[in-house]
């Protein structure tokens, strides 16, 4: 997977330059696109393994690039967003982006996200079993245990955990979770998530206020991380 091709859609040449050298140093082949139109074309031409899309493009919105790629490809898409673009970040995730990094970012953070997304695309989680620290959850048999002791989960808690596990290591927006677990009529009922995540943390986290697995992405959604 080290020779994966990454499409980089970013208008700032300086940012492209440092991303190219850091991604290149990791063994990735990088295709650079300076704008949305070019990026959409390059995505079709080079068939990259992953796309990194900046949200502040000069010609059209990064969200539009994501929509167009999603029309034909399930390739993982990472979004680069400035702090001021909170809204379009969520829009981008709901449009099909898999994760995001907020500018300014350390390159380590971006590389970690790239690795998770590529690993995820190459080997999607089986959806059968999940290990969270000292807990094991079997989705097929609907069983959970922690330190060898069975943990009771309600059907909704199972569904919620399964939905997060499907995107293991990546962010899932409130809307995505609510739609998948409770249905589209509940897409705005964020308080359901607050209550259920609290319950799940009480069952699986050593310290529910400072969780290691069921992480909050404030204002965006949640991220399930298996390893500490």
């Amino acid at each position, binding site marked *: 997977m080290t020779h994966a091709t990454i499409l980089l859609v970013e208008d700032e040449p300086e940012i492209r330059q440092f991303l190219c050298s850091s991604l290149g140093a990791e063994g990735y082949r990088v295709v650079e696109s300076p704008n949305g139109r070019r990026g959409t074309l390059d995505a079709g031409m080079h068939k990259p393994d992953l796309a990194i899309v900046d949200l502040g493009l000069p010609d059209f919105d990064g969200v539009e690039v994501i929509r167009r790629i999603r029309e034909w490809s399930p390739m993982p898409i990472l979004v680069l967003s400035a702090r001021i673009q909170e809204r379009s970040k969520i829009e981008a995730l709901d449009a099909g982006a898999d994760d995001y990094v907020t500018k300014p970012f350390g390159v380590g953070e971006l590389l970690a996200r790239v690795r998770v997304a590529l690993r995820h695309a190459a080997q999607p989680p089986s959806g059968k079993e999940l290990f969270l620290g000292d807990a094991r959850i079997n989705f097929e048999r609907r069983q959970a245990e922690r330190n060898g002791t069975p943990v009771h989960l309600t059907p909704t808690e199972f569904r919620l955990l399964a939905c997060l596990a499907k995107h293991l290591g990546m962010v899932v927006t409130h809307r995505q979770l609510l739609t998948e677990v409770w249905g589209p009529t509940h897409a705005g009922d964020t308080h359901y998530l607050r209550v259920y995540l609290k319950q799940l943390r009480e069952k699986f986290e050593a310290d529910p206020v400072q969780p290691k697995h069921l*992480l909050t992405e404030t204002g965006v959604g949640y991220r399930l991380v298996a390893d500490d």
Partner: protein
Amino acid sequence: MGYAWAAGATVAATLVALGLDAYFHVVNVALVYLLAVVLVALRWPRGPVITVAVLNVAAFNYFFVPPRGTFHVDDPQYLLTFAMMLGVGLIVSGLTERVRARARAQAALEIEAETERIRSALLASISHDLRTPLAVITGAASTLAERGERLSAEERAALAQSVFHQARDVSELVTKVLQMTRLETGAIRLEQDWGSLPEIAGAVLRRLKPRLAEHLMMVDLPDELPLVRVDASLIEQVLGNLLENAARHTPPRTLIRLKAQNQGTHLVVAVEDFGPGLPEGDLERIFDKFRHRNAGGVGLGLAICRAIVLLHGGRIWAERLPGVGTAFRFSLPLETPPAMPAEALAGDVK
């Protein structure tokens, strides 16, 4: 309004003049009318002044100038009285108008000067806080670029690290300035939704972990806290600023405690530190911009906190803790909790 005063002044002057008429010469009586014109001119613009002058002349003519009881004038010298009355009225009115205009201009200048003072304080403060890290970045980066090959790997790594850290500080400062500007100009729209304070706190603690590493962090949140309707990203900033503030102003290994309490109508969140405490002075003013300026901060953090909490209909304040230390507290109004899904209601959980 001025015209009513003009009419009133004429009536009053006439009554006074009629009272004086028996004892004084008619020319002195005219002075009463002149006084009425001057008084009106001191307060009102040209229109009412002309009105009172004309009315006074008419009244004076009717009641006092022979033949009395008519508007006919026998002696042409009274024409001069009329002209004088009008002239004095207009001059006084003109003078007071000019003084008033000058006072208005002065006030406008003072407001402008105050705005300018705040603006230059902001600029001075920001440019100071930008200049130092930028000098470090320029120096370290140019050393790396021009003399990198002469340095040991450790030295290069140290320089690169300092560029990284300083650049991050600059970027945070710029974000804060932008945030303050957006809050002040009302460009921020609250995106309120049901949020959980422990959840927000958890996210902040994770984000600030490296900065709080040298302090002893104690999280003391009750198990059952009601949900709050907040813009979670903004409340995260408030908590973050308060925690960073506590870490910045207390020595390493100081205890910092995060607490929350349900007070019925409000949720009160507190960040307490057991550090040296706040210096003497007004506890309210530390929330003003640039009041709290010192080590590594422009003093925008607390001002941002206050603006965000106020937007949420809450209150923020600081307290000196008995003995030693400081508490920053803010309140968030509690609303009727939202309806929960059937499963939770059925008690299937837990």
